[in-house]
């Protein structure tokens, strides 16, 4: 069942283990009421992952419905600003519904149908996962309820309307900080009460086992495609793979295929908000510490009492005080690096890609783009050849037009 291995000290370390642990991270910190359901989900996931007919159905949907494989786009004019690095964009923004989220959701929705449940629930921050879940639910005839922090329903009003058009019920969450973390709490409460009829379609590589494993497996298609595309296009592997990290699903999606390629640097860019020093950020690995949140042990932002601290980011999709346990593991083992990107740096990269390449990225993805600008300049100074940097362009910026217009003072 375990098919991704990290090598450390010359030993093969398979992650996660059978109980969902990545070293000391991951696991299941859940109410007992949910254990039977996540046991069932785990078993069904493994069974279907090894089932050619299930995988064939998923592959067909990814091709005919999502539009995979997604394109790999050279970004030379953008690259000029990255010390002349060759920047290659993995275009998850071109997927149906506009982000990588659909990859995971189609897998989990098929799984829901396989288990025989008729209702799905989901949390959403920026609305991308909610839109993807509402879409898959419409496609497969499932009832769908999406929990979204009230603050996010205002920041991402367009996506709220999209979900409702798709037939989903959107529940604004008014508890706690009224953002993604509280939407997850509310979805968990719904799940505890309705677990007999309802499957929780979780949006990222966090949460209790099997979600970190399952979501990674459904997202790894990103890196598998990209690795082959880069080899074909460039004739060698990239020097660096860059992705933004909130919960971390697009990053695990693009990193996984490259983990055994020891010469390829994997760099995750976290939301630095106003700057790590200000305390107003969502850079969980950079500025947090190990603990338990939302069903797994990983890094999180917490105060001296172990209470979760509210995160801050201009990007609703990265505005989360936790991160997937495999990222914590990759960080601690040194296989991946994590760096913060401030709101201002992300928005500068957002504008630059729009104007140099004619691609308006999601603000989430703009964090990876800003990181690529930094990496290109750093590596350009060290290498004789222009470095090759693969960037996961996880989503498109349509949903962010209003936020960006306000940020740049553009009148509509």
């Amino acid at each position, binding site marked *: 069942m375990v098919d991704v291995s990290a090598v450390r000290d010359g030993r093969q370390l398979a992650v996660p283990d059978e109980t969902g642990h990545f070293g000391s991270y991951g696991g299941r910190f859940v109410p007992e009421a949910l254990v039977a359901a996540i046991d069932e989900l785990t078993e069904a996931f493994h069974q279907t992952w090894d089932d050619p007919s299930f995988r064939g159905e998923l592959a067909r949907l990814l091709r005919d419905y999502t539009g995979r494989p997604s394109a790999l786009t050279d970004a030379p004019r953008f690259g000029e600003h990255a010390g002349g690095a060759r920047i290659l964009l993995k275009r998850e923004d071109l997927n149906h519904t506009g982000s990588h989220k659909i990859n995971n959701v189609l897998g989990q929705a098929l799984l829901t149908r396989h288990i025989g449940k008729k209702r799905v629930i989901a949390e959403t921050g920026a609305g991308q996962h909610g839109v993807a879940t509402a879409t898959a639910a419409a496609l497969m005839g499932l009832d769908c309820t999406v929990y979204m922090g009230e603050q996010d329903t205002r920041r991402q009003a367009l996506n709220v309307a999209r979900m409702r058009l798709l037939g989903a019920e959107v529940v604004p969450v008014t*508890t*706690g900080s009224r953002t993604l973390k509280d939407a997850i709490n509310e979805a968990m409460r719904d799940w505890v009460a309705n677990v007999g009829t309802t499957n929780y379609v979780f949006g990222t590589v966090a949460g209790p086992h099997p979600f970190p494993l399952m979501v990674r497996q459904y997202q790894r298609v990103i890196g598998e495609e990209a690795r082959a595309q880069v080899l074909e296009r460039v004739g060698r592997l990239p020097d660096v793979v860059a992705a933004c990290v909130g919960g971390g699903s697009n990053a695990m999606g693009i990193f996984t295929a490259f983990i055994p390629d020891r010469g390829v640097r994997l760099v995750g860019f976290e939301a630095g908000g106003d700057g790590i020093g200000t305390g107003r950020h969502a850079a969980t690995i950079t500025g947090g510490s190990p603990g338990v949140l939302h069903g797994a*042990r990983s890094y999180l932002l917490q105060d001296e009492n172990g209470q979760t601290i509210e995160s801050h980011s201009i990007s609703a999709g990265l505005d989360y005080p936790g991160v997937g346990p495999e990222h914590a593991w990759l960080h601690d083992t040194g296989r991946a690096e994590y760096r913060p990107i401030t709101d201002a740096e992300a928005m500068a990269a957002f504008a630059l890609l729009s104007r140099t390449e004619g691609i308006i990225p999601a603000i989430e993805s703009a964090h990876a783009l800003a990181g690529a600008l930094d990496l290109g300049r750093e590596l350009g100074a060290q290498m004789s050849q222009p470095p090759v940097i693969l960037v996961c362009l996880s989503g498109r910026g349509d949903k962010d037009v209003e936020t960006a217009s306000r940020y740049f003072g553009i009148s509509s």
Partner: protein
Amino acid sequence: MTALSDALAKARAEDRAALIGYLPVGYPSVEVSIEAMRALVAGGCDVVEVGAPYSDPVMDGPTIQAAAEPAVRAGVGLRDTLRAVSAVADAGGAAVVMSYWNPVEHYGVARFAADLAAAGGSGLVTPDLIPDEAGDWLAASDAHGLDRVFLVAPSSTDARIASTARASRGFLYAAAVMGVTGARDAVGDAAAVLVRRVRAIAPQIPVCVGLGVSDGAQAAQVASFADGVIVGSALVRRMLDSPDAAGVAGVRALAEELAAGVASRRR
């Protein structure tokens, strides 16, 4: 033997179920919440479940959230919780802490166990820690002679009831309904069914039932089949309605009603 085990044994000797009252620390203030816990003891609770406020309480419904949120914002943590434990113990009640796992892990599991024992606490109820992940806590609770209360739910398989009962000490917390905390109009059949299943699988450990009990009549009903009746949201509601001395008096009055309900069902 902890004070909790003594209290359960005493209730059993009196041929009745035990009454366990829950209140969160820090609402409306640490001081007043401690007063309310003393009122629980005075009103007839055998055991006080001392709730540590937490920012992300996924097992709690709106009532307990409404009281815990301001406490979290005010910076109330496990240090205050331990102070409340001491106060309950001094008042003659058995105190168990109810805490989500991260505050305990952040405090340090071994250190928390030592400080809880020193404060006179009997043990810990862990709504989001299952025995599978509880290695550190099993060791620390053994080292300090503390009870550890894990939950079982109507959805638990027989195998999980068996393994959870084996890991538990003090009592097993049977979540009566599938859902979060909160007063309910009726206590469903699920609780009685669950208690019967637990008794058949693990006859040694006391089984206490929580989630939804709100008045003396419901308490009496649950007392007819469980070793203990756990009441939370209905008590918290008294404090939310009147977060002052009148609320404390309301808590005491409800505790008295519940205690009478529990005592009315001699078995």
